[in-house]
């Protein structure tokens, strides 16, 4: 289904859509407020952006350096060119340890690689330990937001779900009560897992260390109880030096939720005696994106989610309307790089308002890349205007009013458009909007009479 279709479905439940918009706006507002308490905020963003530019320009060197240092620290480093290799590597580690149940803390990369279904098909029980992730996992849904995975659900939904899955009291919606129940449930899982999987927020090339940020401490809980820690890391997560963390950690939490710092920023360097740490470095399309001059800096993303919270489209259409692992503005510039056909409506799911670009802590020019993807997508759909996507063309030119606009507007630019497109009868503009009245004369006519 296309983005417009799913968005209008989402808007059907007006009360819920309004709540979704307001909840995420609240998060953005918190972010605005806290970012304004840091006088050097804009400088920090600039610095973060430049550090990431440097990383992308020297990614090969930093990755090799990271591997060397991590290996010297006693970590086993693996390279995966795509999702499949990544999943195989993880499975083989589990098999070596005869592990049938794992705990996993939030990792968008493993979502991207569809690790959960892969492991489950191979007889491994996977438990997501982030509360929101566990909730969507119970529902067999993907996360609808990269930082707030269950943001599309209301307290009542969760209460019902927990009643069914965890046998909590029917109708009890008290968040403290529900969280407590989840804790007891997860504790059991933590104690039973020999292997814990985490994502990686930052890998430090200079030292071979890596950092995992969570608000619930669930990554630490999993990792410290398990014998084996597998950290799955996209190759773009590298930063050059340990001191760069000071820049990124300050930006990340404030941008994500408006907190001054993420509750748990856990630094991993080498395995404890008798334990193992593995890092799986994953490409999965990232080097392809790096080769696209106009789009490569989308790889600077630190997955804070701020562009989603600020996006007037995301807030009113929900994460699922995008149909991609990473939704929202950043998803709309990353996903077409993976499958331009499948995700062709995403770059059009925007008014190019630019709010995402202004909010992004690493200054990715998101809305400009949306514009550029539009150019690429129409090219991919055919060079001649007669074969342009009828969907888009119908949208613009279907309306008699729009035709009037375009009649003038486009006379120069649009000679190439076939009349059948411009004269289609469907009146999309006028469904919920009045048309402007047509004045007696145009400005041009007036000007000729009055000024020449």
């Amino acid at each position: 289904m296309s983005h417009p279709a799913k968005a209008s479905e989402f808007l059907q439940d007006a009360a819920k859509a309004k709540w979704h918009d307001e909840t995420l706006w609240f998060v953005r507002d918190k972010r605005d407020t806290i970012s304004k308490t840091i006088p050097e905020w804009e400088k920090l963003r600039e610095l973060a952006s430049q550090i990431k530019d440097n990383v992308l320009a020297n990614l090969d060197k930093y990755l090799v350096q990271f591997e060397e240092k991590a290996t010297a620290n006693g970590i086993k480093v693996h390279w995966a060119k795509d999702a499949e290799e990544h999943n195989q590597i993880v499975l083989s580690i589990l098999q070596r340890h005869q592990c049938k149940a794992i705990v996993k803390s939030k990792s968008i990369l493993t979502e991207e690689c569809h690790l959960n279904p892969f492991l489950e098909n191979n007889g491994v029980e996977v438990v997501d330990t982030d509360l929101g992730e566990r909730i969507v996992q119970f529902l067999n849904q993907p996360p609808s937001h990269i930082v707030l995975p269950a943001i599309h659900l209301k307290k009542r939904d969760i209460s019902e779900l927990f009643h069914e899955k965890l046998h909590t009291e029917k109708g009890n919606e008290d968040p403290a009560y529900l969280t407590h129940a989840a804790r007891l449930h997860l504790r059991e899982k933590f104690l039973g897992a020999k292997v814990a999987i985490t994502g990686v927020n930052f890998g430090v090339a200079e030292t071979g260390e890596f950092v995992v940020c969570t608000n619930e401490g669930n990554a630490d809980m999993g990792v410290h109880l398990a014998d084996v820690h597998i950290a799955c890391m996209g190759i773009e997560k590298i930063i050059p030096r340990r001191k760069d963390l000071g820049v990124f950690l300050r930006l990340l939490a404030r941008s994500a939720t408006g907190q001054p710092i993420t509750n748990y920023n856990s630094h991993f360097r080498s395995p404890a005696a008798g334990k193992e740490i593995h890092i799986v470095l994953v490409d999965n399309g990232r080097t392809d994106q790096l080769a696209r001059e106009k789009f490569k800096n989308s790889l600077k993303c630190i997955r804070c989610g701020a562009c989603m919270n600020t996006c007037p489209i995301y807030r009113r259409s929900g994460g699922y309307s995008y149909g991609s692992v990473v939704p929202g503005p950043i998803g709309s510039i990353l996903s077409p790089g993976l499958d331009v056909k499948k995700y062709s409506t995403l770059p059009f799911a925007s008014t190019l308002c630019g709010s995402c670009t202004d909010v992004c802590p690493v200054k990715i020019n998101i809305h400009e890349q949306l514009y550029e993807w539009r150019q690429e997508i129409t090219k991919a759909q055919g060079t001649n205007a007669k074969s342009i996507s009828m969907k888009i063309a119908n949208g613009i030119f279907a309306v008699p009013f729009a035709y009037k606009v375009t009649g003038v507007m486009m006379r120069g630019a649009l000679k190439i458009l076939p009349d059948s497109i411009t004269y289609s009868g469907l009146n999309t503009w006028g469904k919920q909007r009045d048309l402007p009245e047509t004045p007696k004369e145009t400005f041009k006519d007036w000007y000729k009479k009055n000024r020449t």
Partner: protein
Amino acid sequence: MTQNKKIGLFIPCYVDQFYPNVAIATLELLEKLGCEVSYPLGQTCCGQPMANAGYERDTVGTTKHFVEIFGDYDYIVAPSGSCVLHIKDHAPAIAGMEKEQESLHYKIFELTEFLTDVLKVENLKGSFPHKVGYHASCHGQRGLRLGSSSERNEPFFSKAKQLLDQIAGLEWVELTRTDECCGFGGTFAVTEEALSVQMGKDRLQDHLTHGVEILTGGDMSCIMHLEGIAKRNQQPLKFMHIAEILNQVIS
């Protein structure tokens, strides 16, 4: 400062067709402020709707035409942030016209920035005793930086407010979401109709909640969309382009 300068009036095609009064107000306003303005009759659409729909490459002809028509002016002024942004950022490069295109970048102004930055209008005389809500169009706001953006940590400024604050009796109404998009977005208004209308309704509600009588802005495209929704729902709001307010006030 604009004496002996040639000022070209650039009127977006849909304004020419549907909102001649906005174009007239822009022209008269500039004239009252002492500018000599001419409107080159050969002008057509700048190509923005095509470019934003993904067909920038098909706007070479219109862009060339634009450069030819406006190339000789010292200043080009338009009552639209959106069209000005297009000329600055998205007009395709034309071989052999690099210099002219480069200079256009510095010569073209959205109306309010021309008034505040070039004409340095500081002392408008006149009164307009109304509660006015300003819709900051995104292309003006975050594209041309006509005002501080709520996302950034920067001191507050707004070129529109700088002008409207000079008018006696005019009450600038603060909104809850100061610079959220109205949902027009060109082709978006029809390809994503449901979202577009919802965004427009939410913007209107913000203005209504704060007691706005007259909703104004610098881009008629946003206003056309908002007014269309307000009329359909019989909401008690009046709509004017900022040029109309300013021109009415100083007559």
